[in-house]
């Protein structure tokens, strides 16, 4: 009996909160979004768990157990010195997460700052920022990272900073013209006419409208950071050999690819799936957060370009 009153009261009360997380539901509804979320969640979770627990000590050498096939107790088998590959991957995922997040944060801060400087300030400032960005973009990120690590020795910080700066510049280059475009739209003027301060306008109208472009660039940048770490570590410029890393693991195992092909599979798969997952997640995020692309739940107001299904009106 009380059930009906509660049911009628709760939707109104819950409505704002539900709408705020509506994009998450839409993200899950997209197959690419679901895949990306799962991959990223698995990598992040295993990185967290690896801090406290791995099935075996990833550094423990067990000569009697070299090149074990996948099975029990070594789920993914062991490498040439008898280390458990699953534990190595889990420990390596920590490096991956640190690099991806670190590079992502640096790229975001740098990219948004440069884009804002290049789009919203006085003319001479805008144009010098644009030229500066164009110059920086000419340098390939990976080559720079290799040069730096060749001179000062490899470390994760080098990878993080070089990819972060490289992609920050990239984000700035793509976001700046978008910001300019949005800046000249009527609703920004209308926002100013409502009394919004420039900072409020940036926060409420400008940045949300460039977010789709930005998110795709950012996810791409983070995926490249994962690849760069693996690549540089593989070449010996990235993580020091004492640090567990997917790239290092791949480098060690691939020498035996003709003898034990199964063991090489795992780090390769981990890198591939993570990069793919990040890319798909970025793409799905763009789609899920754009209300004009939302699937028409309301048949009278379908998304742009969709065929209208007008229900028959019966009195």
């Amino acid at each position, binding site marked *: 009996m009380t059930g009906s009153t509660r049911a009628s009261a709760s939707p109104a009360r819950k409505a704002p909160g539900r709408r705020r997380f509506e994009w998450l539901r839409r993200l899950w509804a997209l197959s690419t979004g679901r895949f990306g979320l799962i991959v990223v969640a698995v990598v992040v979770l295993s990185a967290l768990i690896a801090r406290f627990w791995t099935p075996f000590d990833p550094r423990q050498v067990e000569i009697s157990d070299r090149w074990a096939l996948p099975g029990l107790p070594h789920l993914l088998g062991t490498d040439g010195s008898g280390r458990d590959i699953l534990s190595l991957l889990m420990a390596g995922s920590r490096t991956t997460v640190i690099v991806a997040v670190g590079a992502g944060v640096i790229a975001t801060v740098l990219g948004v700052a440069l884009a804002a400087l290049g789009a919203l300030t006085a003319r001479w400032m805008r144009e010098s920022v644009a030229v500066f960005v164009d110059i920086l973009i000419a340098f390939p990120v990976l080559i720079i990272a290799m040069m730096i690590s060749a001179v000062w020795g490899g470390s994760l910080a080098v990878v993080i900073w070089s990819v972060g700066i490289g992609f920050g510049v990239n984000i700035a280059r793509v976001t700046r013209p978008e910001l300019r475009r949005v800046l000249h739209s009527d609703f920004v003027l209308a926002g100013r006419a*409502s009394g919004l301060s420039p900072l409020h306008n940036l926060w*409420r109208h400008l940045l*949300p409208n460039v977010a789709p472009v930005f998110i795709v660039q950012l996810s791409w940048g983070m995926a490249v950071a994962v690849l760069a770490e693996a690549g540089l570590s593989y070449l010996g410029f990235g993580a020091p050999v004492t640090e567990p890393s997917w790239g290092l693991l791949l480098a060690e195992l691939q020498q035996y690819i003709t003898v034990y092909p199964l063991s090489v599979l795992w780090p390769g798969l981990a890198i591939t799936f993570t990069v793919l997952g990040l890319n798909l997640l970025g793409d799905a995020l763009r789609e899920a957060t754009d*209300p004009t692309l939302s699937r028409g739940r*309301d048949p009278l107001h379908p998304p742009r370009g969709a065929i209208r299904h007008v229900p028959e009106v019966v009195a």
Partner: protein
Amino acid sequence: MSLEVTDLTVDIGGRRVVDGVSFDVPDGARVGLIGESGSGKSLTALAILGLLPDGAEAGGSVRWDGRELIGMPDRELATLRGDEIGIVFQEPRTALNPIRTVGRQIAESVRIHEGLSRAAARERAVAEASRVALPDPERIVARYPHQLSGGQRQRAAIAMALACRPRLLIADEPTTALDVTIQSEILELLLSLVEDGGMSLVFITHDLAVLSQIATDGVVLEDGRVVERAPVSTLLTAPASTVTQGLLRDATATLWRPGGLR
């Protein structure tokens, strides 16, 4: 509170596009700025609120309630915008942010100027939406602009401009982008809101027929200069300048168009 525009000039890249425009809007008056496109009407409106685009420079004097608006720092002007002076733009398709709900945009100026909480602002948005006769205001405030029709969007834009009960409304060709039938609905709505609220109105248009429905006085512009200033009835019956005569001919043509002015 009255608006006094004296000798207003706007320069863009060394070219004078508004040249010595003067007119008064006493408290409660409804003044129309009329002229062909490119005559400087919209720039005059933007100059009043200090919203001119980059590279445009305003001169002369705009006094609002005794205060000089030209040269006032932007931070100070922002406290007037939306609170004491509201503005409605021509194109309802682009005047609303496509990725924010209609309700949040209607309540934007209220949140800034009156510091309402998110929940209170939502309530207010519903009230404002029903004030401009948007259908089903409870639900429409949760919609996004692309889910609204052109007329509904213009109603939302009007609600946005009036949410803080400004003393002066500047309407920059608010009906030009709309169908003829919806035009007259929006005009009626504007007129009733302005009269009920005791607001002053500056209405910008190129259409003398539209102007005659809403304004009491007209200021005719050509190439950035005022060529005639008279009550609308005089403009209609005894136009002095050739510009006004031309506008009158266009307006009469509208009258005879099928489905034209009602």
